[in-house]
């Protein structure tokens, strides 16, 4: 091991230090391959376990499968892997924006296992978010091993994500776009190339192991002008449903947290409910890829009413699975809900206008998928490229763009935060590069603080203070207690001007009589946002920083502006 590391060190110093692009491309493709392998492993094992469990499905007691799966999955996450379970993708975004993409190594496998247990047993969830989580953790661990800096590490996290998505859907462009649009949030030249290569590597791995060309086969569609008009309406429907889906997911999660049960009981209850729903409506179970396939190829046989109910059943089942202790993503459920919506829409369209010359059901299933994906994630490009790639058909691209853009705009209008970002925005942790929030969180109080201040004692006579005043340039004088050195208050020159110009006062007062003790003070623990808020309350120009009763220094707005601008330049400039 150590020889590898030494060799790498020499290589790094000689070659990569000059330009890290080559390094990032090599490391990125490794990350892509590894996360691609993880994705393929999850997909294959899911396929086999679903097949193995299939014969048992029609027994009456089969509804406990999802319960057992959810139970095992939640216990595994909490007790063995000891992940603080969350949705995964927001955690990746959080770490990318706040900690330079540092992720725990355990994340690279824990979600794979837990989501395998959940989905394999029939829980309604998708395998995509778990592979994104593990892909990005693989990228992050690789960067840690190579000792890279934050910027490079973030690129590798993006590479891992792209590789995972590219591999599980066999869709390299969707992987690239998802990674940049959702995870990194910035389109930078230096990022795009390694991530694109990682995406291709991931897709190649998947093709090499599973030799099928596209995820869903279909007959060519004939898309005409009426379809574009119809897709406008479809977009509105998908926007509604995506908002409903997002809200239900969040509400169920909140409800589950309030429920007075231990974790594993919650998981069992949620699993049982999903199982029972699945008894009546098998379409809601597991990731549902093969139902999607049947819908696209036009062999889906459910009636319009049942299909309509199935949309809501799927939303319900997914919320129960994810909110009550299961583990998995919302990608596949989105696809299924989308295709169901498309089918219902198509059927309704023919019911109302029997003579209309529209494309087949399958095409509308595709459009519905795009609509929901773009609506729920509010990532229009990911929606378009994913559908185009997983079906291998470009003939529907025009209506796809229409549906995707309208659906994401509409759902953004109703619900400004997408499912992935909502939690982060609520916590104030949605820190995209180059935004105000990001700069404020990056700038540390200890970087802004000016520490060179003459401190004065509270028992000093005013005359002596006037002498100090003559020779120093300070506008603020911290007043401290003689014995302990504790901070007592602050003297602001502008506030004591009238005494300072009156020599009669010089020997009459002590500093503790004129100091201001009501000034709000900040501490080193505060972040800049809080400090600025404090300053706004009293309209202060400068604020004293006090830690453990000691005066540390002052923060002035001038200094903040100075450093804020520098930080903005640093974050937004092209590398």
């Amino acid at each position, binding site marked *: 091991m150590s020889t590898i590391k030494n060799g790498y060190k020499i290589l790094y110093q000689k070659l990569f230090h000059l330009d890290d692009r080559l390094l990032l491309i090599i490391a990125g493709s490794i990350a892509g391959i590894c996360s691609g392998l993880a994705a393929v492993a999850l997909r294959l094992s899911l396929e086999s376990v679903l097949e193995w469990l299939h014969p048992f499905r029609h027994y009456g007691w089969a509804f406990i499968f999802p319960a057992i799966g959810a139970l095992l999955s939640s216990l595994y996450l909490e007790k063995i892997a000891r992940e603080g379970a969350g949705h995964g993708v927001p955690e990746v975004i959080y770490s990318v924006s706040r900690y330079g993409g540092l992720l725990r190594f355990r994340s690279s496998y824990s979600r794979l296992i837990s989501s395998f247990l959940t989905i394999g047993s029939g829980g309604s969830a998708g395998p995509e978010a778990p592979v994104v989580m593990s892909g990005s953790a693989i990228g992050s661990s690789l960067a840690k091993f190579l000792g890279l*800096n*934050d910027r490079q590490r973030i690129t590798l996290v993006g590479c891992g994500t792209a590789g995972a998505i590219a591999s599980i859907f066999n869709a390299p462009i969707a992987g690239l776009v998802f990674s940049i649009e959702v995870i990194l949030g910035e389109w930078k030249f230096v990022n795009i190339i390694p991530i694109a290569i990682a995406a291709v590597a991931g897709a190649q791995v998947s093709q090499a192991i599973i030799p099928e060309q596209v995820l869903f086969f279909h007959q060519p569609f004939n898309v005409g002008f009426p379809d574009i008009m119809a897709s406008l309406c479809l977009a509105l429907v998908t926007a509604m449903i995506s908002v409903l889906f997002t809200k239900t997911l969040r509400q169920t999660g909140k409800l589950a947290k309030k429920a007075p049960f231990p974790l594993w009981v919650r998981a069992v209850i949620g699993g049982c409910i999903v199982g029972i729903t699945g008894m009546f409506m098998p379409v809601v179970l597991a990731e549902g890829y093969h139902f999607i396939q049947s819908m696209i190829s036009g062999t889906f046989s459910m009636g319009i009413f049942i299909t309509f109910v199935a949309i809501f059943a799927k939303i319900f089942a997914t919320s129960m699975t994810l909110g009550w202790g299961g583990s998995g993503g919302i990608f596949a459920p989105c696809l299924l809900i989308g295709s169901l919506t498309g089918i219902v829409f198509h059927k309704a369209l023919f019911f109302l206008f029997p003579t209309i010359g529209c494309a087949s059901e399958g095409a509308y299933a595709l459009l519905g998928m795009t609509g929901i994906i773009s609506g729920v994630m509010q990532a229009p490009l990911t929606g378009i490229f994913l559908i185009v790639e997983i079906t291998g058909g470009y003939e529907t691209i025009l209506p796809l763009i229409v549906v995707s853009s309208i659906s994401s705009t509409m759902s953004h209008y109703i619900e400004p935060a997408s499912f992935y970002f909502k939690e982060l925005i609520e916590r104030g942790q949605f820190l995209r590069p180059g935004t105000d929030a990001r700069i404020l969180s990056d700038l540390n109080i200890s970087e802004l603080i000016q520490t060179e201040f003459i401190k004065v004692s509270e028992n000093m006579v005013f005359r002596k203070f006037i002498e100090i005043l003559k020779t120093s340039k300070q506008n603020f004088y911290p007043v401290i207690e003689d014995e302990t050195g504790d901070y007592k208050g602050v003297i602001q020159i502008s506030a004591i001007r009238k005494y300072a110009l009156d020599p009669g006062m010089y020997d009459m007062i002590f500093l503790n009589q004129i100091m201001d003790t009501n000034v709000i003070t900040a501490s080193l623990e505060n972040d800049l946002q809080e400090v600025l808020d404090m300053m706004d309350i009293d309209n202060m120009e400068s604020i004293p920083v006090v830690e453990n009763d000691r005066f540390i220094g002052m923060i002035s707005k001038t200094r903040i502006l*100075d*450093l804020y601008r520098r930080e903005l*330049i640093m974050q937004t*400039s092209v590398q």
Partner: protein
Amino acid sequence: MELSVFDLSKHLGVVPNTIERWIRQGKLPVSQKGAKYRFDTKELEKWASKHNIRLNFSDKDAIQKDIKSVIPLSAAVQNGGVFFDIQGTDVNSVLKSAIGKITNIPDDFKTDLLDRLIEREKALSTGIGNGIAIPHPREQLGYLTEPLVSICFLENPVDYKALDNQPVSVLFFILCPELKMHLHLLSALSFCLRDNQFTNFLKSRPDPIALIEKIEILQKANPI
């Protein structure tokens, strides 16, 4: 040339913590030698121009300038000199003969300087009372290389339209190339003149060496 984190933090006007964070985030061109970070000046300049950031490599001159402007009063008096028995009967003639005696002013500028001083006296008398006046021009004199304070004792007291209407017998000329020095010297001088002991001492028309010594002592009491 190579710089350390501390050097660079001085040039960029930020604290070393910020530099370390930028290194961690991969925003600076840096090379690592052991546990220490090193920056190459050329690479830094390239980087700075690309990012439109000003690298302040020449801040040492500014500090030196600052030091130059705070010349002590005693040194200025030494530059300017102490002169006795200035003749004249009114403000203009006194000023004229005093300027004639001050050696450190180039001869070509003496008439110009006299005009300026008279103009200043017309605007508002510089006689501050107690028999003392501080004649000085309003604009600073760019042709001087060093600030001068010349002390001139008059042969006979002259009516100077002083604040307290007392006749003036001592003139303190303050002639500076820069306003900052001027204000500094004016403030230092008025500190001395507020001291009663010093004004009494002046009335005894002391010799230059004793006078400068006295100023040095007072200066120590009022360090700026």
